[in-house]
Structure formats: structure tokens, C-alpha cells
């Protein structure tokens, strides 16, 4: 299967700022559990469903939080990405660059793992997460 082309590194500064979005932005996500905890938005299209599966296969260790993770690996956790596109609307190129390249010593890059369609689906899901 065809792998995605490596994106321009000029996007990296922007992507870093996205990754560092404060977790508080998550409060703008699609749902809210009792107690004010934001819950991810749920997909409504086939592509978003596929993207949700990609997300849960590759992203959840750092981007889904629970009490155990906050206690044991808090320094590794990234933002939950809930409401990311409502808080700040990154372009697809920016999101793709971050997914493929990662961030040195903070986030693994998925350019050797994900094919182009999987990245597209993941971005479609992130838009409604």
C-alpha cells in the first residue's frame, strides 16, 4: 500500500504549538460527562469511524487519560485532543505533519506505520473528537 509523502518540516513549529494546547481546551469537546469531564465526539461518517479506529489503535496511550495514567505517566501525557478543531482549527497539512513526524522525545512519528488513507481518516476523526 502507498505510504504518505513526508511533509515539509516548515510545519513543525505550528504542530508543536498544537500539541502543547492546554488540556483545558478539551472542555470544548463534543460531550460532557457528569462532573464536567469532557467526552470525545462520536463519528457520524464512515471516514470518521475509520479514523476513530486508527486513533484508538495508535494514539490512546498518550491522548486518553485516566487516574492511573495521571499518577504513573503524567509527564508523558499529551492533550486529549477533545475539541481540538473547535479551539484552534489547524489545517490538514499541519495535522498530517504532526502525525507523520511526531515530536522528538515527546511523540512518535507514524510515517512508517500509517498509510495515507489512515492518516486522512484520522484527521477526519480529530475534527469531530
Amino acid at each position, binding site marked *: 500500500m502507498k505510504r504518505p509523502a513526508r511533509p515539509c518540516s516548515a510545519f513543525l513549529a505550528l504542530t508543536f504549538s498544537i500539541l502543547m494546547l492546554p488540556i483545558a481546551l478539551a472542555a470544548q469537546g463534543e460531550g460532557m460527562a457528569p462532573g464536567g469531564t469532557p467526552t470525545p465526539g462520536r463519528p457520524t461518517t464512515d471516514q470518521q469511524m475509520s479514523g476513530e479506529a486508527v486513533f484508538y489503535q495508535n494514539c490512546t496511550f498518550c491522548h486518553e487519560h485516566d487516574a492511573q495514567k495521571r499518577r504513573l*505517566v503524567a509527564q508523558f501525557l499529551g492533550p486529549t485532543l477533545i475539541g481540538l478543531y473547535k479551539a484552534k482549527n489547524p489545517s490538514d497539512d499541519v495535522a498530517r505533519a504532526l502525525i507523520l513526524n511526531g515530536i522528538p522525545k515527546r511523540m512518535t512519528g507514524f510515517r512508517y506505520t500509517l498509510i495515507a488513507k489512515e492518516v486522512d481518516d484520522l484527521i477526519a476523526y480529530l475534527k469531530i473528537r
Partner: protein
Amino acid sequence: MARFRYMALLGALAVAWLAAGLPVASQAPQGGILRGAIKAQDGKPLEGVAVSARANGSIITTSVWTNQRGEYVFPAMPAGAYDVWAQAVGFTRTVATPKLAGSGTVQQDFTLPPFAEMWRQFDDIEWYESLPGNTPEDKGMEGRMKRVIHHNCSTQCHNTGYLMGKRYSRADWELVWERMSRWSGFRADPPYDGEDITEKARGAEYEDDIPGGGKFTDKMLDPEGKPMGAQRRILQFYREDLIDYLTRVRGPEDYPIQWKPLPRPTGERASHVVIEYHVPEGGTIRRLDPKTGTFTVFNLGRDGSTTKVENPPFYLNPYRDGHDWARGGRNQFQELGQHDIRVGKDGYVYLPPGIGRDLDPQGNVWFSTNGAVKFDVKAEKFSVFPLPKGYEGMHNGKGIDSQGNYWAATAAGAYKLDPATGTWTLYPSVTPLGRPYGLTVDREDKAWFAQISVDKVGYVDGRTGDVGEVTLPPITDEPMTEEDKKVNRGWTWNQPLYGRGPRRLQADPRGDYVWVASHFGGYLSKIHIRTKQLTDYKLPGAFRFGSPYEPVIDKTGMLWLAMSNTDHVARFDPKTERFTFYPLPTRSTNARNIDVDNTPAVPEPWLPQQQGGKVARVQLRPNLR
């Protein structure tokens, strides 16, 4: 394209269910017959192909396998429109949409095109079998690194295929190692269950204890200055070899892996039926009525009250349930999974939360990791028996003796709760810090618990209070270096190559043996409940590293074994001492626990899928063909 059209259809259905909150359809035993033949593009019949059918709007999927003529036949299914798909490793999953009438037969044939990237469809042990065993990191010991990965990176938070399906640069594998060793490095016992952790356990969490007792003499501190603990020591020992191996085999450069798919099932191994039920969201305990395929959810409130929800909501994403093998492996945190199961005495199947459960003599369901919770199946109410303040919580195994006492494994040994008085008694294990895990009670009221970190099985005689233990011999039949043999033990998720890791066990309710599954070493063992004599059975071939998890013995004396590192359920005949491995139709199930319904003439094992969001019922039909 057919695959994606099918996915779109399923996705639309899932959304419709969510939006409308409609009850799901049921599946009755009467109806039409669906059958057909499957061939490859060269026209040759394909044996051992999985064929699955799900009616539109149903949460139930039924699966069968083709015979040597490439033919399949389903049991009678209700009238309606179905999605039917056929798949086998190396072939493209192909979908049809036949309609079944209330009676009569529908013929649905398939021709399967080849699928080039077969590794995307692999079972975890197909990944294990395919990994190279003679790299420089193997140090001349065939398969050393495969087993290092099996013993340290495939221990059921995720399995082999989930890890090896990924490819990273060296820097990123180093990052993965760092995070995983941090995650695994904390001491896993006493319990660590987030908000429920006791102050005592929290204080002991980073102690540098040796499994079996004592302190490490060579202090190893992590970057934060805390003792590393037994598990991270192992990962530290293998750090360079692991990163080198992973970068070599699953790095930026293509490595010439020789893919080794399992032979497709034939004969008896392809003559079974698997019926899978999607599990609804939420609830303290979920109850399935197998006759109608409907769920009821019961919730335990903070005030001890019980609420009941009929026709609970489902969240179904067809890309996440493992029915399309080419979507690859998942991890246990990914899905709406289910760990435990108990087939009730009242015809229902119960899915309790957490880890560890049993039925009392009246058929009530007991569970919980911090104290005990009883679900009265007739009154449909919960009762809570809290642990006294200051008592460490418990983990994993639970059991009920003939007097109705509740037993549970804990860090120091085993607890007994007398529900009549609410009295808890601790029985310390002979070997301390052995990480008591699974627990079972035999028919003479001995509570047995597996000590996963020291390869021992402890017991408490519930009638006398005597305690003892049985030692399982280490693994010596797999090549390892002298340094490998000197690595210290871990607690749960990390083990040296010589470690067996007895994890779950079950007493035969009608016999004189306790059966023990050694998760890491790939052994099934039986221990006589009076003589304590140990007999070992090594799992054969590729299934050796399928991570046997929990056994259960049916009314005919046949043993069924859940396996978490392969999508198979094993049957072991104690008379012939022969294993038979039946495939499951979902990929990356991570099925751990198991129970058996002894009501039918031929008992039926039930397996919850930790990663598939389903529970599976396996029916043998040896006389069908």
C-alpha cells in the same frame, strides 16, 4: 470497494441505533438455512475459511468454517437481510448481502481474491511465528528475542501483533521503551487501581522488593530517584537488545520477514459454530439472555442502591470490533471490552466488572476488587461488603466455597469473607510477595491461588486453616544465555525467559484436580487437591506462546482453555492428553477468562473478548458433516 460499502452500511446502522436508541433484534433458533461454497480465484475450493453472518439491525454475529470441499452451512437463522462475509489470511475479505426467508435454503458462494499484505490479517501467534529468531540480538540462542517480546511486550495490555504491526525509527522505539518501562516499572502488587488505591499500598508502591521476599542488594534508581522495581529491572536489562531488534525488524528499513500464517483449520477444528454478542455500554453488571439476545444492565449506586436498564445503548463502530482482520490488532484500553464472565444458574450470562468473579451456591454473582459485592440474581439487587479500613485491596481471583464464604487473592495471600458476619480473615502465603493472581476453590473447600511472580501455587485449607504451596519448575527447554538465566523475576507484566507465570486456575467442581494455566511458559498443569502431585502438559507447536489464560472444566470432564495471545480457544481431553484449537472469528480478541454452559448435551464454552467488545459462545457440531 465491497469492503468499504459494507463498512459504510454497518456504520450507518450503528449510528441509527445510537440515534434512535432502538432495541436490537433478537435471534431465534428457527429459520432459514444459509449455505454455500468458497473457492480461490484459481477455482480450487478453500477449506477452513471463516464465514460470518449478521442480520441487519442485530448485535449477533454467527460464524462457521468451510469443510474440505470448501462448503459451509449455518445453523437455522431468522428471516431477514444479512451481511455475510468470508475471510482467510492471504485472501481478501469478501462480502455478500443475501436475504433469508423464514424457511428453506439460500445458496451464497464466494470467490476470494488474494490479499498481498497478509501480515495485516495476522493472529498474534502468526506474528510470533514470523518474527526472525536468529538476529545478532538473539546472541546465538534461536528465538531469544521473540520470547523476550512475548514475556515483556505481549502481556495482554496489548499482544504481539499490536506491537509488531507498528514501525518506528530508532529514536521513536527508544521513546516507546521509555514510556513502557515507566508504565510497567511500578510495582504491580499491592494494587494500583487508581482512585481506590489504599494509602498503605500507595506508600509501598515504589519499594524495591524482590519477588518471593527480601530487597535487592544493588539499588537501581530511575531518573526520579525512585527504586526501579522488579519489572523495570527486566526491561532495563533488555533495553539495548529490544531497541536494536525492533529497529532492525520493524524500523524504517524493510526487513525480509518470512511470513508464516497458521495452516487453516480442517476437520474437527472447522466444524464448530461461534455466536458473538456485542456488549452494551456502561453498567456495573451486564446480563445477557442468550435465548433472545437481549441485555439488561444493573447499576450499583454510590448509596448502595440498584437501578436496572432494559435495552441499554450500544456503541458499534464496525472498524473497531475485529470482524475485519485486515484492520490489525488492538489493545485492551481501546475497546468496550469485557474481562470476566459467569454463566448463571438461571439461564442468563453475567458480565461483571473488574477482574475476578464467582457464583455462590444460590447462583448469585460475586465480584469486586476492593471488598466484595454480591449481585442477588433473584432480587436483582447488589449488596456491598467493604474491606475494613487499612486492609489492602485485592486483585484478580475470587471464589466461593461450599459454605458460601467469599475468597479473594490479595498481595499477602488470600482473604476469606464470611458474609453472615462480615468478618474478613487474611491467610498469608508461604512465600511472600509472590503476586497472588488467580484464585479458585476446590470441592473440599481449599482455596488455591497462582503466584505469578514466583511460579508457585499457594493454597489455604478452608476447613483447617492450613496453608501450603506447590512449586512449578522453571522453563528450561528454550535456549537462553547464561545472563538470561540470572535475570531476576518480575511481578506481572515482565518476566525472565525462564519464568512460567501461573496466572489463572480453576478447580474441577466434580473432580480431584486444580488446573493451572502458565501464561508465559505455555503450560497447562494439574495439581491433585490432596496429594499435591503436579502433572505438566506443554502446549504444542505455535500455540506454546499463545498465552494460555484461564481453564474451565465442563460436565463431561473436558477442559476448555482461553488464550489471550491468539484468537483460538483450546479444548484439552485429560484422557487422551490431546489439545484441539478452535479458531474464533474475531481478530485480536484478547479473550482471557472463560466459563462453560453445561445445560446443553454438548457443553458450550463462553469467552468474553477484552478487545472485541463482544462475548462469544462456541458450539460444537461434530455430527453435522
